[in-house]
């Protein structure tokens, strides 16, 4: 066993980066610091063709660190105004990893409201670009806290993004570009590789059991015959993450910045 220490945030970054490995030259959008660092890591290692933005209006040659910007000037390589981003979305040359509040067994997600739509218990952001993203290009999801409030038993309170739910297709025809990829959480990596795109556990983070993931999920998960442990970050990956995140924002996302290897943690 390697003695290399890594945090939970770091193994979530390396696991999430994998979602862009085989995408080729597309816009990679990671919403939130850890998905953003994951896209940055993917670009800095196995998929240099990915295009990233500064989170505002520019495409940049190199990933822009989360948090305050100091030091070297950022090289801008293109204009990423919203009109152009929408056009990219509709054209399909994008893969986003977003962080919804809820997800259900179909992969439908919610960031709009908790409770009823007409008089919500909690009003959140609004659907933003989720509906269009979900039927236009590949999407992956990120959950910093895997629990039954996020992985809900029934449909999400307000379906903001399309999932593999034939009841909601028009004329029973699945949207042509509906393509859900990975779900990365603080417990495991999941995908849609089961029958009819059912959600299955793809790997367990070190020290996490399948039962623990199932207990924190409001619907039944598929357990493949071979269920590996999520690979630990390599020393090289950790060094690159360190360079991509000089402000150490990754240490502030998960409460207490816990270790990534929870074996023997009881």
């Amino acid at each position, binding site marked *: 066993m390697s003695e290399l220490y890594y945090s939970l945030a770091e193994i979530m970054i390396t696991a999430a980066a994998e979602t862009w490995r085989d995408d080729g030259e597309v816009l990679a959008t990671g919403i939130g610091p850890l998905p953003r660092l994951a896209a940055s890591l993917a670009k800095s290692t196995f998929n240099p063709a990915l295009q990233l933005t*500064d989170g505002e209006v520019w495409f940049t040659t190199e990933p822009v660190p989360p948090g305050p910007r100091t030091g070297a000037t950022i090289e801008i390589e293109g204009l990423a*105004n919203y009109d152009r981003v929408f056009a990219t979305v509709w054209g399909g040359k994008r893969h986003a990893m977003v962080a919804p509040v809820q997800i259900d067994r179909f992969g439908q997600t919610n960031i709009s409201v908790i409770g009823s*739509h007409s008089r919500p218990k909690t009003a959140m952001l609004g*659907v933003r670009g989720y*509906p*269009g993203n979900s039927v236009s290009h590949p999407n992956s999801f990120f959950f910093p806290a895997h629990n039954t409030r996020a992985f809900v038993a029934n449909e999400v309170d307000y379906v903001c993004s*399309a999932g593999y*739910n034939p009841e909601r297709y*028009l004329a029973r025809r699945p949207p042509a570009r*509906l393509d859900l990829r990975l779900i990365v959480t603080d417990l495991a990596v999941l995908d849609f590789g089961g029958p009819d795109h059912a959600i299955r556990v793809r790997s367990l983070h070190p020290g996490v059991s399948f039962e623990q993931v199932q207990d924190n999920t409001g619907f039944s998960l598929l357990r493949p015959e071979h269920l590996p442990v999520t690979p630990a970050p390599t020393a090289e990956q950790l060094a690159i993450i360190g360079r991509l995140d000089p402000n150490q924002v990754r240490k502030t996302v998960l409460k207490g910045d816990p270790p990534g290897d929870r074996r023997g943690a009881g």
Partner: protein
Amino acid sequence: MTGLDKRMSLDEVVGRLSDGMTLGIGGWATRRKPMELVRAILRSPLKDLTVVSYGGPDVGLLAAAGKLRKLIFAFVSLDHYPLEPHFRAARQGGLPVLELDEGLLHWGLRAAAMRLPFLPTRVGIGTDLIRQDAFRTIVSPFEDREELVAMPALKLDAALLHVHRADARGNVLTLSADPFFDELMVRAADQVYVSTERLTSTAELDVARHSRYNLIERTAITGVVETPFGAHPTSAAPDYQLDLGHLKTYVDSASSPEAWTTYRSRFIDVSPESYLAAVGGAEKLAQLPVPVY
């Protein structure tokens, strides 16, 4: 020089609007919102407005002041404070809405701009959006026979925008890197009022050099009002940046009815000159640091 003079005061602009109108508000969340025009609406008796916006504190202020009958939106956010507190309170109190995807909002404005009843799209398929009453579906008349979502036109009675430079005839420059969907707001609207950082001569606009910043032709512009720092507390980069300090004060104004009353008396029920002084003065605002998104 033609005699064309579209210069107006804030009150003249607001006087052209009427109860029950559908207003489009330009900008995006915390960027280039026509806030001085919004504050002028708050000081007026206008009511029952339907607002179409990529929402930020524009929507929050109108909601807090009870000006909204309906909101047509894809999000309302302060970016650095993702959840807009006044919007949340109104929404949780039952404010009627038409909720849209960001691209559907664009599509609805484009349909109105093209004088079409709707535009077809796949956006919304598989979601709760298209279960709202406003939506219909339509089958492609071509061989694919695909059933698509019909996004209805979002016709605006008036649009309010903030630009960087304008002349008295309504020629405008929007100098920021992202023009957002201001042009579509204009084309979807019957009347268009722009607030501008600076009113200049036509020659000073130097449109030949700034052609990409000239989003729209003057025949679409109804009125122009000069409002230095008129987008504050949102940004009008490159002229000035988002005021994160004031944004905090604004967020805190939602903490209690008293806090809102205090905010209102300090920053809304005052003249633009007093507002500028209350938020720290021109020199301070011109030096605001570039925020990180």
